[in-house]
């Protein structure tokens, strides 16, 4: 009997705390996806500002994804709509969260997962925090106190954010590299962290539930990619029955010139490299026969406007200023 009282006491305390945190969560969750409303990673979350069911292809991944893929160039080539939910040093757990959010409003037929985050170990603290914050979003959005302190509480909606480049980040600077030992063939396999393997499986299940195909894509990077990692992802893709394309292994088809197509000595592609990868993807997407050309659809007219703006930005050297 002695033990019952403290157990009941702790349970009551924990329940009370959960109720308070749930109440705070309600107050702290951003009402819209804008930075002013307290949303994190607004470019990656900009897909929430897109009209419902308007995106054909969703890309998730870290900086490699938003540097290498331009949805507006794919639109120009094919008339397919895509969005890059990419953020710097993205953890795979966050890729999953972004995808969950995308599926709330969109029904993409294809999801592309850029593979570098598969190799990024997730700190245990982040894993726990990600899982708990699904149920108690205050843990994710607690920093909104700064916004609330300045603007006060608001429970209504408001302006939404949409990315002008659909998640892509333009960088036209050139800082080339002469790669050595890049993609030197080996049978060694770089081990994928266990939790990340589980996350890939969960992402695959999520895609299947929403009727989307999952594609694993390794974009070109001399700094971040190697044959061991290629082997690791190939093995995983084979095991799970997921299609995998490694652009690092098919330089002839992509045509990356490392002296001109990178802005940081092989770490990321610049605009010139992005054009080549986007062109490759356009061809791939056309080959899937999953999508229809929307260039003449009046509901998508603003994509043409955005494309014009993008091309103006490129030609005016906006990407050189980054």
């Amino acid at each position: 009997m002695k033990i019952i009282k403290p157990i009941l006491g702790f349970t009551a305390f924990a329940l009370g705390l959960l109720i308070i945190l749930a109440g705070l969560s309600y107050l702290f969750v951003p009402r819209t996806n804008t930075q002013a409303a307290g949303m994190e990673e607004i470019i990656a979350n900009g897909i929430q500002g897109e009209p419902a069911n308007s995106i054909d292809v969703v890309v998730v991944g870290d900086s490699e994804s938003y540097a290498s893929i331009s949805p507006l160039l794919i639109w120009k080539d094919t008339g397919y709509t895509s969005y890059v939910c990419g953020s710097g040093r993205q953890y795979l757990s966050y890729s999953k969260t972004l995808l969950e959010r995308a599926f709330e409003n969109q029904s993409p037929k294809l999801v592309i997962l850029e593979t570098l985050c598969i190799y990024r170990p997730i700190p245990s603290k982040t894993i726990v925090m990600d899982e708990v914050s699904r149920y108690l979003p205050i843990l994710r959005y607690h920093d909104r106190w700064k916004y609330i302190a300045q603007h006060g509480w608001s429970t209504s909606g408001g302006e939404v954010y949409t990315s002008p480049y659909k998640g892509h980040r333009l960088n036209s600077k050139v800082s080339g590299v002469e790669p050595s030992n890049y993609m030197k063939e080996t049978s060694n396999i770089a081990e994928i962290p266990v939790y990340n393997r589980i996350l890939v499986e969960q992402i695959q299940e999520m895609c299947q539930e929403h009727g989307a195909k999952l594609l694993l894509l390794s974009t070109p990077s001399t700094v971040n990619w190697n044959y061991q990692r290629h082997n690791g992802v190939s093995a995983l893709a084979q095991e799970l029955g997921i299609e995998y394309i490694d652009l690092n292994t098919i330089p002839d088809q992509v045509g990356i010139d490392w002296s001109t197509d990178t802005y940081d000595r092989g770490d990321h592609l610049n605009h010139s490299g992005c054009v080549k990868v986007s062109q490759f993807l356009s061809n791939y997407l056309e080959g899937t026969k999953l999508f229809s050309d929307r260039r003449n659809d009046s509901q998508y007219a603003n994509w043409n406007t955005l494309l014009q703006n993008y091309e103006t930005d490129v030609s005016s050297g906006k990407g050189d200023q980054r």
Partner: protein
Amino acid sequence: MSSYFSPQYLALLLPASVCLYAITPQKARRVILLLASYLFFWAVSGSLIVFLLFSTLSIHHLGLWLDMLQQNSKRELAQAEPDQKKALKAKAKKQQRGIILLAVVIHIGLLLTLKYSHFFLTNGNSLLRFLHLPAILPVPTYLLPIGISFYTLQSVSYLIDVYRGKIQADKNLFRLALFLGFFPQMMEGPICRYEQTAQRLWEAPKMTWNNFFLGGQRILWGIIKKMVVADRLNMFILNVFSGYDQYNGSVIALAAVCYTIQLYMDFSGTIDVALGSAQLFGVALPENFQRPFFSRTISEFWQRWHITLGTWFKDYIFYLVSMSKPMKNLTSKARKRFGPRYGPILTSSVALLCVWLCNGLWHGSAWNYIFFGLYHFALIFTGNLIQPIVIQVTERLHIDRNHLAYRILQTMKTTILVCIGELFFRAEGLRNGLKMAWRMVTDWSFAPITTGNVFAHGMDGPDLILVAVFLVVLFFVGLAQERGVRLGERIMAKPWPIRIAVYYAAICFLVIFGAYGIGYIPVDPIYAGF
């Protein structure tokens, strides 16, 4: 598991240990503590746990050996003729000193090898290059087991205390193992003495609700200090210290102040978690901080900051050097030459210099740490020298040295000197530290602060306000503690609805204002790296 702030520690190891400890009989509790301690060590440092096991076994064995020699010596002395006693005593002392020397060679040698060989060999190579000698010394890189700097000092102090007859050698290996490896003290101390904790740990006292709540409160307070303030300042400090050449003197000075705050909040917060964790089990670890920023002099500061390290150096380095025969001779000569006031100050400064060299080196194997130690030595030495002059001058000018304004000025002076020292402590190398200090002197402008540009480098206005408000709260808490108010016990004395409300408020404060999640980099406890 990386620290006391990791979910594995706070949500698994600590609660599981507490629950098991609470439901097991007394004799099994000590086993729970020892197993939890080794589990913690293994979770942080993996197979490097062999170093802790080796230290425990060797210190235990050397302690017993010392004890045996002491017993033999006592027996021999009891049976010896009066004229033989002096020689026997000398012989016994020599043998015992041999054991101490052996222990120092093994344990400090191991610490030096693992922690300092990289530094010494790298500097050796620089010297060889400077002398245009073609040789290159191989520079190995070793993994450091967690807490080696802390448990090594505990091991050595145990053995020296046995040698000095202050304590008896422990025949019980497991009690000694628990004393050296107790998990709440493992990461950042406090550096405990055998007589302070060993027996209490071995007794494994019954858990009480009072200790449980007091310990829990202290853990929560420590987490708030670390996660709300220390971790919040991290990004700004990181930016300024890694790219100081982009900032002018005022920003560098602000970064030095912020780092001093960060270090205090981080270290004292971790110690709060350590002491709170131990208190859950009914074990009182020694305090390591006593409101250091209330200090009026640098000497006083070091009596209030990292207290257990300071007392360790005092007992095992300062006294060792100052009470040695050559130093005693030097003191009597200096007393004749410089008078009774300055003579002892000058000779004790030799021991002081040894202490501060060791203090600097203990913190890390780099020149900026050595400089940090020498800087504090210079401040304390100068303080000792000019103290009589200050007393004379203030008396002549009829200045009351206990007046509040005078005390505030002294406290501010001490705080500024500490912040300058921490600039070198945090700088990425001594050269960068000197350049940063030079920039503070030659490139000073308040513009980045007045225009708000400073807020674009990892810390915004609300961050600064939050830190400032917290510091004000901390100041009043410190003031109350200086007057003997025990806030933890005050909370405990309140009716339970008020207590529960306080706990909920503290947890919500931590959840909302903690610097964690997106936009923040998790920061491991700073002193765990030393």
